[in-house]
Each structure stands twice: as structure tokens, then as C-alpha cells.
């Protein structure tokens, strides 16, 4: 086996391993096995009794760097620790999940490793040492296919695109846990403020979004009830965010969040190009709009032309019935 390795950065927040990291790790393991290199998962911060979720991907080595100072993200400390591990382990291929943490950290690592980097990749194919990656540009209005030219290559993978693969723990799994002292805390998260128990559109498998057709913030409970029934997150068009009906964090689109859930409901949203840019890569799209010519229908898999004030309550009832 080559001494070169393939490494995935594993993100934890409050001791929860991010699913998107396991997706990136699954790609890491696959490509490492294919090229006969060792796959390594690197986890920074958190206190874990077991690494079941990580080892289930068949990864060969887990490195967990711990310190109470590292439980919350510190860009400076994480960058230093992770770049050093990549160097010590002679990584030639490094993966991140393109989460808010991954987006922040990956470009820093690329400078430290003198590595070319592709952010937000949605496809990656390999031929021997060559990799061809694809990433959406212009918020999905086009795609770019590219190669990374440097010896070390970094890819940050869009969440919810690559599957988590769990063949089971590798028989020769090696686990290393090390305490980290003298961390560089020049940039440090001092506090985590959670939005009151709500699911975020960027992590949700199902999103129910409302637009100006909702007529006012007082009608959004119709959206929220449907979302609760489905275990979905609530999203919004920019028109309703700018009007102050909904918080910024819910905006989907070119200047909001780019999402690719399994199922996306657009209710009273016309489907302006900037909105479509942020959500048209969803696996299934349902549009509810009273205007049969609304552009949202051009990307919808299923559509209902009608009044959402009548349709949403019926839909919630029907889903409840089917689910029970």
C-alpha cells in the first residue's frame, strides 16, 4: 500500500456528526480503496465514546483531536491542526462537506497545502490519478467541469448529493485520539446561538416554502403546519423576506440559500430566475400557484393550479391521513 493517504474532514457540532461529513467520508473511502491508499477520517473537537457512525463507512483510520477549547469552531485552530495532519499523513486528496464550516475551512487549508480546490462539487469521477469534478456556477444556471492541477487536490462536496455508504467497520481500523494543547485561538466562536429549535433549509430533506402569494405573515402557519406534518423546514422567497414576513435565514435563491432537498414545495411563489437558481436542483418539486403560467411550473414535477388557501389545509390533512 502507498504511504499516501486520502483524508476527509469530519464536522461535529455539539457532539453530533454532520451527515454531510459522512457523505464526504464515503467518497473518500471509495477513492482511497480504489487507488490502494489509506482512508483517514479526521475529527476535531467533541467528546465521543464511540465512533460507530464514522467507522461504519469502512474508513481505515480515525484521528480525533480533542480539547474543550475545540468543541466550538475556531477557524485558526482547526486550520492549523487539520493542515498539519494532512502533511504528516501525506494526504494527496482531501475532502470536505460544503457546509458553512466546510466552506470556511477548506479554502484556508488549500493555501496551507498549496493545493488546488473545487468548492461545492456535485459530481466527481476518477480515471487513475485524474479526477473530473463538476460544480454548479451562477447558482445552478450552468455547470463547470474541471480538473485540479496540483499534486494535492481538495474537493468540498455539496451536502445531500453523494450517498452515505456503510459497508461496516474495517477489520484493521486504527483509532488515534490526541489531546491538543497550545491551540491558536486567534479566531474563536465564543457562543452558539440556535434559532429556536427550527430546522434549517440548508440541512432539510424536505422544504416547504411560501412566497408573496401567502398574502401576509399571519398566514404562514399554513406553511408551518404542513412543514411540521412532513418534518420539513420552512423556506421563503426574497419578496417575503424583504417585506419582513420571514427571517433572512429562510430565504432560498441566488442571494439566499442554495438548497437541494429531496422534496421542495413552492407555495405562492412565482419562480423568478433568482429563486429557481437556488432550488431547481431539488430532486422533486411541487408547485402550488393560482397562475397557470407562473414560471415555477417549468421546473415542477407536480403542480396544482389553484388557491393555496384552499389547497394547503387539504394537503396537510391528506398527508396526515396517509402517514397515520
Amino acid at each position, binding site marked *: 500500500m502507498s504511504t499516501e493517504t486520502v483524508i476527509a474532514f469530519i464536522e461535529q457540532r455539539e457532539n453530533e456528526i454532520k451527515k454531510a461529513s459522512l457523505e464526504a467520508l464515503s467518497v473518500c473511502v471509495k477513492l482511497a480503496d480504489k487507488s490502494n491508499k489509506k482512508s483517514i477520517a479526521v475529527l476535531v473537537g467533541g467528546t465521543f465514546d464511540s465512533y460507530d457512525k464514522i467507522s461504519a463507512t469502512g474508513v481505515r483510520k480515525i484521528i480525533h483531536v480533542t480539547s474543550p477549547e475545540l468543541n466550538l469552531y475556531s477557524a485558526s485552530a482547526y486550520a492549523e491542526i487539520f493542515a498539519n495532519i494532512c502533511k504528516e499523513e501525506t494526504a494527496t486528496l482531501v475532502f470536505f462537506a460544503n457546509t458553512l464550516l466546510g466552506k*470556511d475551512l477548506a479554502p484556508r487549508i488549500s493555501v496551507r497545502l498549496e493545493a488546488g480546490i473545487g468548492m461545492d462539487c456535485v459530481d466527481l469521477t476518477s480515471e487513475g490519478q485524474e479526477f473530473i469534478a463538476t460544480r454548479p456556477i451562477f447558482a445552478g444556471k450552468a455547470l463547470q467541469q474541471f480538473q485540479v492541477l496540483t499534486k494535492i487536490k481538495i474537493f468540498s462536496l455539496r451536502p445531500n448529493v453523494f450517498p452515505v455508504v456503510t459497508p461496516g467497520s474495517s477489520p484493521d481500523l486504527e483509532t488515534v485520539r490526541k489531546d491538543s494543547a497550545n491551540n491558536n485561538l486567534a479566531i474563536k466562536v465564543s457562543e*452558539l446561538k440556535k434559532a429556536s429549535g427550527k430546522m434549517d433549509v440548508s440541512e432539510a430533506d424536505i422544504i416547504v416554502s411560501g412566497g408573496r402569494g401567502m398574502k401576509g405573515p399571519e398566514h404562514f402557519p399554513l406553511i408551518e403546519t404542513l412543514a411540521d406534518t412532513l418534518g420539513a423546514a420552512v423556506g421563503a422567497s426574497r419578496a417575503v423576506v424583504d417585506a419582513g414576513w420571514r427571517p433572512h435565514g429562510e430565504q432560498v435563491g441566488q442571494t439566499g440559500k442554495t438548497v437541494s432537498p429531496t422534496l421542495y414545495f413552492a407555495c405562492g411563489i412565482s419562480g423568478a430566475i433568482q429563486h429557481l437558481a437556488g432550488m431547481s436542483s431539488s430532486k422533486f418539486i411541487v408547485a402550488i400557484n393560482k397562475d397557470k403560467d407562473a414560471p415555477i411550473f417549468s421546473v415542477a*414535477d407536480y403542480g396544482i393550479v389553484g388557491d393555496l388557501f384552499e389547497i394547503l389545509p387539504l394537503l396537510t390533512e391528506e398527508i396526515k391521513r396517509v402517514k397515520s
Partner: protein
Amino acid sequence: MNIGVCISHVPDTASKIKLSEDHSGIDYTGVPFIINPYDEFAMEEALKTKEKSGGTTYALSLGKDTVKESLRKALATGIDEAVHIKTELELDSFSVAKNLAEEIKALNLELLFLGKQSVDFDSGSVGQMLSELLGMNCITNCVSLEINGTEIKAEREIEGGREVVVTALPAIITAQKGLNEPRYASLKGIMAAKKKTIAEKEAVFTDSRINVLKYLSPQGKSSGKILGSDAGGVKELVRLLKEEAKVL
């Protein structure tokens, strides 16, 4: 304090993106360009910071001659000085950062504002790369910012909440929507900006670490099913989601 804002000149978000016939590039014919929307927030924060703590504000943009339109707009909005780093090439984020870093050193900038991402190639990388190249502390995706002396406290938006982040000058802040409400250029500003000169530099780093093979259009969807708008249509929708799409 010398404050910088990095401005990317991008196609208007309402424009359709057309590929060149051989798919080797993007056909920008007839496409209107604007200041990258996130850089508007960055610029507003630079102006607000100057109003509070004094100093000189600089706008930097790298690209073809047309980026001057955005620099001119920045001057009209109240930015003091503008620098155009000239290149005809489509550079990767790293080369963009390397070129910007040279100029940032030359101007002795202590605080930099960027957008969280440029809405053309959507990399969201230049700020963090500058931070490594220049040894400045960088906080990305900021929706609030307080500067006290050399101490910085910012909130960055993350999945399902915010992180309160503390650091110190010299620093780089990348702006997310919500950071502020950008102002408009005044008529007086627009007139004054016409008389100002934009400094010009040549880009020196032109190596790319990425080789673009081709551009593709996203696969369109075959047209969807339109269902009735009554209880029957709703029942059918739920059935299809369950049995055809298998997502419920």
C-alpha cells in the same frame, strides 16, 4: 485606519446564462453587469466603519476594463479611492487572492470587507485565502459586526443559527445578507465620482490551479404533471409523492 472593500463585477442576477457554442466558455453578449450583491453589503460596512472610526476607504477590483463600471459606482457611493487590477484572463480564486493580496499589502489595509461569495462562480473562497496569504484574521458569512479598538465581535450565520465569533484586527470580514442595508449613490456622489481617477495595476499572478474542461447547461426537467385543484387533485398529488416519487 485604511479600510478596503473587494468588489467583484458580475452578471445581473436576472440574466440567463448562455454558453458559448463549443461550451468552452460563457457568452456574455448583451448581459448587464452589476456589483456582486454581497459586495454591496461589504461596501456599506466599509462606509459605516469609516464614518465611525475615520480612515480612508479603498475599493479593489480585478478583471477586464469593464470592472471600472463597478468601481465608479463604488466611488459614487462614497468610497474614497479605487484600484483596478487589470487582467483579461478568467483566473481561479487563488490567483485572484494572490493578486489582491499584493495590492492590499501595498496599501497597508488593516480591515477588509468582501462578499461571502461572488454570484458568478460561487466559490466563496477569496476572503479565507487572503486571510492565509496576509496573516489577517478572517470571519466569513457575517450578519452582524462590532469593532471596539482592535477587538472584533461578529455573528456569522450557520445552519440553524449563528455563531458569535471573536477576533482582532487586522481582519477580513465577509458579508452575508442581513449585515446592513446598503445605501444608494447620491446625485452629488455620482457627479463627483466622474472626476476621480481609478488607479491601474497589472495582475502579476496568472497561473491557475484549476483547468476548466467545459461548461454545461443543467438538465431541464421533462414537463411535470398538473393535477386538479380540488380535494381529488390533492389526493392524487399525495399518492404520486408516495408511490411514484417515493418521497413520503
